[in-house]
């Protein structure tokens, strides 16, 4: 365990020390690049970072939950027939290519500013990898197992939840891993446009810190956003590991 944690920790400490020393030695102005000590101090300041983190985390979780649920349902619908897939799949790709900043104003018009619009922005950014991966999983079920279920007269629905969904689980988990990071990114970007200033999330804090050139607060908010993404990813990863450890080769020998 120490062997895995120690090297990145040493690298981090060295990097931060170097940063601190260089910024002080070269007298870099704090609005350009604050030293790590100033950023650390910003966490304790009255910039409302704690509340902002909670607001953003709530929106990201709702967006991620929606992406997971709707993504799996969409994949099941697309997998139901080749015709449906051919007709609709190209349009799901739109979700991935549409610039979220460009449609965020529309989301505000539709859902009103605040949590709902922000969560929908997170959903739009995060849902595609869930759909694409789950669909690939549903499509790659062993044909012999399909035959087996047919032989025993299993209904469509029972084949779905006793065979296809469990078989697609490894790919589904992969999709959720990617979606977890994207959901946080989508939330921050959504907050830039659709965030409420009286219930400010990290996106709003970043914007106002930028306007006031409080670069130390900006850095602190970015660090918190990154940690939030990491935490969500780790939670999904752990859940996936729990579900797959007894049977899937991807989890063999994992911690």
């Amino acid at each position: 365990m120490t062997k895995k944690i120690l090297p990145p920790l040493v690298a981090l400490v060295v990097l931060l020390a170097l940063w601190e020393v260089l910024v002080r030695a070269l007298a870099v102005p704090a609005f350009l690049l604050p030293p790590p000590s100033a950023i650390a101090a910003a966490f304790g300041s009255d910039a409302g970072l704690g509340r902002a983190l909670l607001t953003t985390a709530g929106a990201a979780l709702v967006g991620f939950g929606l992406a997971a649920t709707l993504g799996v349902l969409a994949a099941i619908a697309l997998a139901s027939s080749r015709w449906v897939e051919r007709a609709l799949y190209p349009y799901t790709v739109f979700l991935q290519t549409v610039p979220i900043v460009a449609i965020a104003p529309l989301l505000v018009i539709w859902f009103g500013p605040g949590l709902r619009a922000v969560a929908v922005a997170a959903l739009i950014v995060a849902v595609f990898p869930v759909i694409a991966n789950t669909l690939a999983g549903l499509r790659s079920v062993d044909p012999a197992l399909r035959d087996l279920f047919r032989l025993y007269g299993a209904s469509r629905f029972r084949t779905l939840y006793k065979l296809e969904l469990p078989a697609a689980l490894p790919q589904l988990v992969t999709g959720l891993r990617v979606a977890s990071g994207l959901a946080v990114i989508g939330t921050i970007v959504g907050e830039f446009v659709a965030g409420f200033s009286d219930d400010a999330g990290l996106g709003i804090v970043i914007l106002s810190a930028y306007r006031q050139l409080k670069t130390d607060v900006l850095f602190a908010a970015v660090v918190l956003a990154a940690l939030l993404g990491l935490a969500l990813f780790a939670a999904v990863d752990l859940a996936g590991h729990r579900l797959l450890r007894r049977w899937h080769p991807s989890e063999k020998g994992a911690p």
Partner: protein
Amino acid sequence: MATPGAAIGIRARGVRRVFPGAVTALDGVDLDVAPGELVAVLGPSGCGKSTLLRLLAGLDRPDGGTLELEGAAEPGALACVFQDAHLLPWRSVVANVALPLELARVARPERLRRARAAVEEVGLADAALRYPAELSGGMRMRVSLARAVVTRPRLLLLDEPFAALDEITRQRLDDQLRALHADRAMTVVFVTHSIAEAAYLADRALVLSSRPARVVVEHTLDLPRERTSRLRAEARFARELGVLMQGLERSGA
């Protein structure tokens, strides 16, 4: 009319199966299997043996000819063992074996009891709670066999089931299959490309020609009902191997 619970007989006349691209897999297959018989279908690889088995299982339909299974065809009357074990990797051994009963909506305590009995029958009682990824190839195949017999099928179809296993494991499974057949009213049809396996296992062997496949040789094995590994070294076993070998050669393999 077959009585319920009795083994299923097979009667095929002129069965034809053509795949897209005008590939004729089977053409004019005549086949009779009596209820309770243990029949081996021998043939060169790629000759259409698996296609024939899929037709018998009802997983595919013939393009011509007639194919009748005597006896009711309710789910569970028929079971298949494929070339690989094809287990559900997210289920334990006993849950895999219980699957056919679960799909037939047998109540949970009943299906677990029957699944455990089937697992015991193939000698895997100690591994009942393990997962497929934790088993050897031979053990997985035995789980597959247990899953096939758990519904008490009246017709068991096997498609080169033990082909990927080592010689020792394979012989043990051959013995297990014969024991399962002896214990119940069950017709067994299995496909193989191994002459030795066909001779050791079957009461009767059918040799298919190369594609498009027809039955070219039918041979009832002149061997005792009780078969042990000692038989494999006897002269009469070698003589039967010779007969089947000649049949295969004549089939154009």
